[in-house]
């Protein structure tokens, strides 16, 4: 269980972002394209230089390189490694964990079973459908035993039925694992379905939305440009 705290974060379009996501919360960041949502996730993951400070459970992680932050990052394009099967994609994600070979295999089996992808274990990404790739990528992000989960519009390329099903599954896994999560989207419906709490981002600034979820305004955010 990890609490995430951001203090006066600035990077590219981001302007003095302050945010606290309590342990186990699913925080949805809603905003139009170009608002800086993905940039904020990259900053938390350590992939972009930034000003300000980031804390995990009160410990400043600013000096930690990306590979030490233990952040599960689900990119918009998923970025499953094309030269590896699903099983090996998961194995790569566990390379840094001090586990025996047997423990790794067990953990992979458990994760694949939880996400319903056991039959896909020996497939390459090019041999899978969009929804299957989403599940495999989520399994890979979880395989790292992350402290924080960052999801960057992972369902944007799916049809609404598949996306809805995967959102429900994601919510269920997030609840069960009690993993602190930031979910980025520009889809109002998606935000309402997932969020414990919601933040709105526009032109690099983060503003609060009325919370709890039941009090969300009915109007969706306008897409910019």
């Amino acid at each position, binding site marked *: 269980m990890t609490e995430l705290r951001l203090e006066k974060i600035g990077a590219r379009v981001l302007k003095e972002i302050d945010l606290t996501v309590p342990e186990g919360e699913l925080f949805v960041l809603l905003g139009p394209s170009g608002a800086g949502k993905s940039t904020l996730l990259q900053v938390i993951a350590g992939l972009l230089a930034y000003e300000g400070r980031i804390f995990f459970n009160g410990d400043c992680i600013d000096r930690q390189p990306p*590979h030490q932050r233990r952040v599960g990052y689900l990119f918009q394009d998923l970025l499953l490694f094309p*030269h590896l099967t699903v099983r090996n994609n998961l194995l*790569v994600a566990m390379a840094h964990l001090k586990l025996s070979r047997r423990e790794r295999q067990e953990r992979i089996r458990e994760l694949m079973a939880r996400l319903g992808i056991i039959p896909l274990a020996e497939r390459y990404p090019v041999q899978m459908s969009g929804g299957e790739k989403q599940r495999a990528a989520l399994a890979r992000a979880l395989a790292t035993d992350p402290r924080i989960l960052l999801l960057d519009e992972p369902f944007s390329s799916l049809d609404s039925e598949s996306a809805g099903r995967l959102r429900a599954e994601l919510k269920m896994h997030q609840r069960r694992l009690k993993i602190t999560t930031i979910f980025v989207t520009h889809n109002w419906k998606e935000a309402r379905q997932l969020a414990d709490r919601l933040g709105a981002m526009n032109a690099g600034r983060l503003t609060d939305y009325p919370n709890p979820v039941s009090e969300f305004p009915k109007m969706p955010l306008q897409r910019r440009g």
Partner: protein
Amino acid sequence: MSDPKTMRYICLVPTGLLVLLIVGVLAGLSIQLPLSRTLDTLASAEIRSALRLTLLTSGAATIVAVILGVPAGYFLARNAFRGKLFIDTLIDLPMTMTPLVAGMGLLFVLSHESVRHTLDVLGIELLLSPYGAILAQVLIAAPIMTRTSRSAFAALDRRYEQAAQTLGLRPRQVFIRISLPMARPVLLSGMVLCWARAVGEFGATLMVAGATRFRTETLPIAVYLNMSSGELGLALVCAWLLIMTGFGVLLVMRWIGSPLWADGPPERIGA
């Protein structure tokens, strides 16, 4: 102005001329080849020695070129620094230099008193030795490997490396487990090309290693030596060995093509 058919004929003429030129060269070499004595010539001690030395030196040169060229290519693809354009161009230079001139430069460096002294102390014999042939081949072939690697890594979507970092992989692990395998098809092509260049290397090898029968006599050197001494049969057999090697290399490069994981359209099985 011109319909597709006319355009096809216009392009066909230069294509035909090019094919004719190459076939002409091959025919010229075939006519002179003493077919009846080819097998005997192939089995001769000199040819076997030249072939063995060529394979050994080109193999070693390719390994060194890969060890130098792949990291150099990765460095150039992933880093921006002052003077990069200059360094980049400098590394490419041996590809445009006449090998004879490159070899001449290498000869002068190796002949310099301080270099010779250092090599003597270390017990390394480069001038007029097979090791010199390897060094000459590296000089000519390594830039090909560097250039190919640079292109391969530059074309690789950097976000895969970022994704690997977020999965807990250190930069070295990212390179070995992600970047290198993803760039593998292009790197393999580069390696094959590099080896072919090393096999056919003549000018720089002649300058540094000299042309001593059974000692520094690679196949191109054997062609030169035997042409000079009027042993046309031996020279032609060596020439054909080089041509067959080149043809084989081109076939392999086409065969390497795309890897399994990039083949075909995605098989949709349902979300």
